[in-house]
């Protein structure tokens, strides 16, 4: 028994464990998602996050210890974002035809995301700090945190709101789009990217490469537009 405890103490301090449980949780989440016929509520990111939160709580492992291992997965977000340029390039013809409608959708979506979130939270008694942290929640995390700081919000709270928005967008978005009878892959992907940044893009790639390409484009452009628009909008209010 002490031998087993020794092994646990050794493993708990090495990055191998955090990295491995992340992959195992995701593989299980992805397996459940596929087995259930890709039911939107069984989103693999949601399953993996819930499983890992329960695991860390149960073993009383601090997030920092877990992240020592998980950071290797987290790091790949950077090169993955750069990689989004490639599918976009292969959808150039469609991008050329659709750039004006996409630009309109981008501005409308960016404003809707910020105004509706802040308005609803204000209506239900959210604190000023929460409101400022909510405003950039549809933008990719690093930019959203910077914007929140400028508006007087809490960057760390914004990070959580951004991830939650991503999961919600991936869970609810395709259902909303089906309800509206949106069949065009570029439009579907773009709407998911504006709403749910990289997590929406990951969801869009499950639909098709074209949806993923336009979703990645939307994520990048939304970061830019929101970073420019929100500080101006905040001064008007």
């Amino acid at each position, binding site marked *: 028994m002490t031998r087993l405890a020794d092994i646990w103490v050794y493993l708990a301090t090495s990055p191998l464990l955090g990295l491995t449980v992340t992959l195992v949780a995701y593989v299980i989440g992805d397996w459940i998602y596929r087995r259930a016929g890709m039911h939107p509520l069984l989103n693999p990111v949601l399953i993996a996050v819930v499983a890992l939160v329960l695991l860390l709580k149960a073993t009383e492992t601090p997030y920092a210890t877990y992240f020592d291992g998980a950071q290797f997965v987290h790091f790949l977000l950077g090169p993955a974002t750069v990689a989004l340029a490639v599918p976009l390039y292969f959808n150039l013809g469609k991008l050329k035809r659709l750039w004006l409608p996409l630009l309109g959708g981008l501005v409308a979506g960016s404003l809707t995301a910020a105004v509706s979130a802040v308005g*609803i939270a204000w209506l239900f008694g959210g604190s000023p700090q929460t409101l400022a942290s909510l405003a950039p929640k549809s933008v990719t995390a690093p930019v959203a945190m910077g914007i929140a700081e400028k508006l007087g919000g809490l960057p760390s709270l914004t990070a959580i709101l951004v991830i939650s928005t991503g999961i919600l967008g991936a869970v609810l978005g395709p259902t909303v789009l089906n309800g*509206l009878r949106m069949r065009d892959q570029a439009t579907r992907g773009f709407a998911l990217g504006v709403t749910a940044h990289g997590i929406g893009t990951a969801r869009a790639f499950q639909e098709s490469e074209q949806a993923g390409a336009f979703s990645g484009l939307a994520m990048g452009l939304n970061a830019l537009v929101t970073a420019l628009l929100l500080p101006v909008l905040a001064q008007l209010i």
Partner: protein
Amino acid sequence: MLHALTVLLLFQLAGEALTQLFSLPIPGPVLGMGLLFVALFFPKWVPEALRQTTHDFLQHLSLLFVPAGVGVLQHFHRVTQEWLPIMLALVVSAVLTVAVTALTIRALAQLTHADTRAAERE
């Protein structure tokens, strides 16, 4: 695989360096995506390897968000304190944003005669 990964990291590095240098309001990797997109226009530059690797890489994009998602642990009390306004704002705003974005694109596409359905058949 090796070349493709090197290319991606080089463009990320360029993006990070430029955003730091000029204090741009976008993150380095997003600028790196823009730079790579422009670079792809130089003829005969896109190796098939890059296409294959990025395809495989992006298939598992959602895995990469798991560690950040687990970060909710650090802010449990804040999120539970104001759970009602936060939850309502996030859910309603997500539904509205998807709908408004998609409907705007469809309306403008019809207005500018960019037939999205014809494009879909390609």
